[in-house]
């Protein structure tokens, strides 16, 4: 018995989908598998996890991982403290300034990292004078770097709720401006803030250009140095940071989905592709 044209069309579509899935999947997975394979292979000795163990044991690498994680946390904190009240204030009190704020926040996207570094060098002479030469001072540069992505994400969150009415309702019930932001606005744009935070973490963990050119050490700089003497460990560290970023993005999509189920407000997730930007920079 032969299948009907409709069933045949459905089968053809299914086959097409599987083919696309396999080809695109292979495009992403094969390099990762190659990295994984390379990071556990020792010529003439077979396979070993020694290079992965090095991630915890190599003091320079361990210190770089800690520094990058601290940088990520500080960048997220500074970005949220600067951006959330500013954006809420602009929406509530000076909506006419929104275009200017948007332009300023998106500006770092248009400036190549190398140009940014030339400008930052002069600024960092003062930063070093006031805050010392710790790698953590990169927080200031990274906060500027993550602004475009964080702005987009938070802006989408704020657009999904009626900020003006909710704020006025809270104010009429006796809430101060601080209470309005912390207890009304922030909980309602939670997934947008998480999205902004995750994207910022992924950006900071992958950032190389600014740290390297300003002579600071972070994870990517150390991986680069390590690659010259111990390629397998460097690849293991790269793969680990990539996987960490993937986990963050997966978490991000789950967080967004769960919170949109609870409240009416839905927040568009930040563009996932942006995580690759610093590596390209």
């Amino acid at each position, binding site marked *: 018995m032969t299948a009907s044209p409709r069933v045949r069309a459905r089968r053809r579509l299914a086959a097409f989908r599987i083919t696309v899935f396999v080809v695109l999947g292979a495009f992403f997975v094969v390099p990762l598998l190659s990295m994984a394979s390379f990071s556990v292979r020792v010529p003439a000795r077979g396979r070993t996890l020694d290079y992965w163990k090095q991630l915890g044991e190599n003091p320079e690498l361990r210190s770089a991982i800690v520094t990058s994680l601290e940088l990520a946390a500080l960048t997220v904190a500074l970005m949220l403290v600067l951006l959330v009240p500013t954006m809420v204030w602009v929406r509530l009190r000076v909506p006419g300034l929104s275009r200017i704020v948007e332009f300023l926040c998106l500006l770092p996207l248009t400036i190549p990292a190398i140009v940014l570094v030339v400008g930052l060098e002069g600024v960092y002479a003062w930063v070093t004078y006031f805050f010392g030469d710790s790698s953590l001072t990169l927080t200031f540069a990274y906060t500027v770097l993550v602004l475009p992505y964080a702005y987009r994400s938070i802006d989408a969150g704020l657009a999904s*709720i009626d900020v003006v009415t909710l704020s*006025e309702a809270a*104010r*009429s019930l006796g809430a101060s401006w601080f209470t309005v932001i912390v207890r009304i606005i922030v909980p*309602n744009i939670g997934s947008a803030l998480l999205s902004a935070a995750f994207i910022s973490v992924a950006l900071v963990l992958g950032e190389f250009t600014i740290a390297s050119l300003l002579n600071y050490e972070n994870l990517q700089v150390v991986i680069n140095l390590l690659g010259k003497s111990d390629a397998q460990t460097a690849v293991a560290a790269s793969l680990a940071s990539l996987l960490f970023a993937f986990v963050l993005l997966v978490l991000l999509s789950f967080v967004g989905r769960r919170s949109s189920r*609870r409240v009416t407000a839905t927040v568009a997730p930040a563009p996932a592709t942006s995580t690759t930007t610093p590596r390209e920079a």
Partner: protein
Amino acid sequence: MVTTSATRTGLEVRLDELRRSFGGVPALDGLSLTLGQGELVALLGPSGCGKTTALRIVAGLDEPDSGRVVVDGDDVTTLPASKRDMGMVFQAYSLFPHMTAQQNVEFGLKLRGQDGGQRRTRSIEMLELVGLSDQKDKFASQMSGGQQQRVALARALAIEPSVLLLDEPLSALDAKVRAQLRDEIRRVQLEVGTTTLFVTHDQEEALAIADRVGVMNRGRLEQLDAPEVLYSRPASAFVAGFVGLMNRVPTTVTGGTADVLGSRVGTLDGSIAEGQGDALVRPEQLTVAAAPGATSTVVHLSFLGSYSRITIRQAGGVELLAQVPAATVSDLTVGTAVTVSLLARTVLVASSDA
């Protein structure tokens, strides 16, 4: 039923010569108004007349260029919204989406430092007042528009506000829910006794629930009166035209009387003293009777249940709208020659260009 703690005598609210302009365009032009204790005053007017601006100034969400807002003798003009102790229900749905109905109602109480037990008791009490205690665990997204506005009302009343401000709270609802909630707002307001300022552009809403209705035009109060007075004795052509349907019948005033549709009637305060003008006549103040050979004819007839609306064209081309009991005009059809007479003994006569 609300407990004694929830019940409180309303406070007197006075608006003194409020002025506010936006970009040089006056939104409020010397608005003065006093709300008595526990009174519900509705501000009615077309879009842009300044009614919402007035309400926002009372709430502390906007500042006047000049003038004062006085509550119970205290000048609160410069107090921020958070310190004014006023409950407000907004036109847009304003429940906090991340909180349940009960948490929404508890929010203002929490800010006032009430402990958990007190808050829960009070919030349930308020939700019962608006008939939604069974919905206390629902989020805004799980409630209908009418339910959300009722929770918003409960939330505004929970803090025992000195004044309740209602900014077109029914305008986003469908007609049936709007009528139900309108009556409910009045019931709750009478039960709680809070002085209430209600802003609306819907005259039916304003006339149905307010103790007094203020009609606003271009930032000024044209008339503030009880609904029946406003309707039967409008103080200006604008009020007459804005509240209810109105015919303009050309007439001449002489010696305090006017000849309208063949009847000589008195003129109301606010009418022109002498000369030609338009008598403002409500459709229900007209009677219509078939009269073969008469110069007026029926051009449109709408049956609306217990009454009918008839459009009549007079010999001079002037059209009149009459509203009469349906049973009295069963013999009329489009084209029937009719006579139109006036039932009222006094009318407002405005100048023709007013």
